[in-house]
């Protein structure tokens, strides 16, 4: 059985934020981190595709558009496994609050939207630790596009251009990200993601997240 469905019993607390690009999740996580630090909590931050081991290779391969969906998926799994074993797991054992900008759910959403089998990718990631709180920022693809493409065209993979859905990157982005959102929405029930409306104000969303985090920590006997 996948560890993603079992409560972990490590000392620390694992929080992740999910959602498509432009959903505001990174902003929210940064605010949360600064606040937690300011009140004296031990916090560690980790983000998708950032491991020393592989992230450069993946970025290079993306630039050259040479990845098949399955290779794309496995390279991200390498990155995730490396960060999980080197960063996330030790920090949780040491009692940190670990803030993850994207988690395994990103792979489930994106890879499946690319046509990878959903059970296959879930099994690949079955070593992932279940987060104590996973927040999903729900946004429609049009708003997301307006936010991230205000000063640039969508990038090749974020627009899903590898799937040849459309020659127009903007149109391709809309189709591809709609598929990603559909996958996220399925996961709300499957993995208990907490859905937040991404179109709300920064303040409102931050208040909500802090409230959610307080509850999680309280259950672990920590008052903040």
């Amino acid at each position, binding site marked *: 059985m996948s560890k993603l469905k079992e409560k972990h019993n490590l000392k620390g607390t694992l929080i992740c934020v999910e959602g498509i690009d432009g959903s505001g999740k990174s902003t929210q996580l940064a605010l949360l981190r600064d606040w937690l630090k300011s009140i004296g909590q031990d916090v560690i931050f980790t983000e998708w595709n950032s491991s*020393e*081991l*592989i992230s450069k*290779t993946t970025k290079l*391969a993306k630039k050259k558009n*040479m*990845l*098949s969906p*399955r*290779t794309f998926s*496995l*390279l991200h*799994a*390498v990155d995730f*496994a*490396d960060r*999980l*074993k*080197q960063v996330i797991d030790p920090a949780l054992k040491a009692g940190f609050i670990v803030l993850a900008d994207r988690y395994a759910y990103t792979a489930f959403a994106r890879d499946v939207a690319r046509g990878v089998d959903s059970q*296959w990718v879930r*099994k*690949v990631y*079955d*070593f992932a630790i279940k987060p104590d709180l996973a927040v999903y920022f729900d946004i429609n693809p049009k708003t997301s596009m307006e936010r991230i493409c205000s000063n640039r065209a969508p990038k090749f993979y974020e627009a899903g251009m590898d799937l040849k859905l459309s020659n127009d990157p903007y149109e391709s982005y809309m189709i591809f990200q709609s598929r990603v959102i559909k996958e996220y929405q399925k996961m709300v029930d499957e993995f208990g993601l907490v859905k937040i409306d991404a179109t709300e104000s920064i303040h409102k969303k931050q208040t909500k997240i802090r409230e959610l985090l307080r509850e999680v920590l309280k259950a672990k006997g920590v008052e903040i």
Partner: protein
Amino acid sequence: MEKFKKKHNYDGLLIVIEGTDGSGKSTQLELLKRSIEDQSYGVMVSEWKTSRLIAKVIDDAKDRNLLNATTYSLLYAADFADRLENTIIPALKSGFIVLLDRYYYTALARDVVRGQDIEWVKNLYEYAPEPDLIFYLDMPVDVLLKRIIGTTGLDFYESGRDVGFSTDFYKSFEIYQKKCLEEYNNMKNTYNFISIDGTKPIAEIHIIMQSEVQKILDSGVMY
């Protein structure tokens, strides 16, 4: 005819040589390649861990001892996926005879020895087409150890030093290779390996492989 029916639906043939390090795979692959080429068939060879993209990362990470059992498995799986989808399957589609130095059985053996759950590893490779022939070069561990020490020497990961069986290089190597052999033995029947005694003379092994391949070629499936 039925006996020679290909297990995948591609026009080409997929032939694999498996075995541990130092079992003589590359030598046999080279001989087999030549004998098939001589009969005017298109042949392509692909070796384990050679994707343009990922092979270098694996070597680099190994040099710096950066790998844990999970990243080890996943990196090899990524390398395999890249080669399979960009090289092997296109070649099979266009009717080549593809000769492979190692296939995912290598990953199954090595990853399981590193403590990974076999079902998890199988899932990583479940999309790979089943080969038409799998030759396995069976070598007793003592012969194997001598061969490797006499040629390439002991390498950190090939000695399973990352698994922590023993801090003694030789001891660790022996345990690791023995465990790999056990895994290969477990797979022999499940995957229909054609097991060949690897201590036989090179020419004799080649004749055995060649005659198996010839049966398929003569059956006419390649016309």
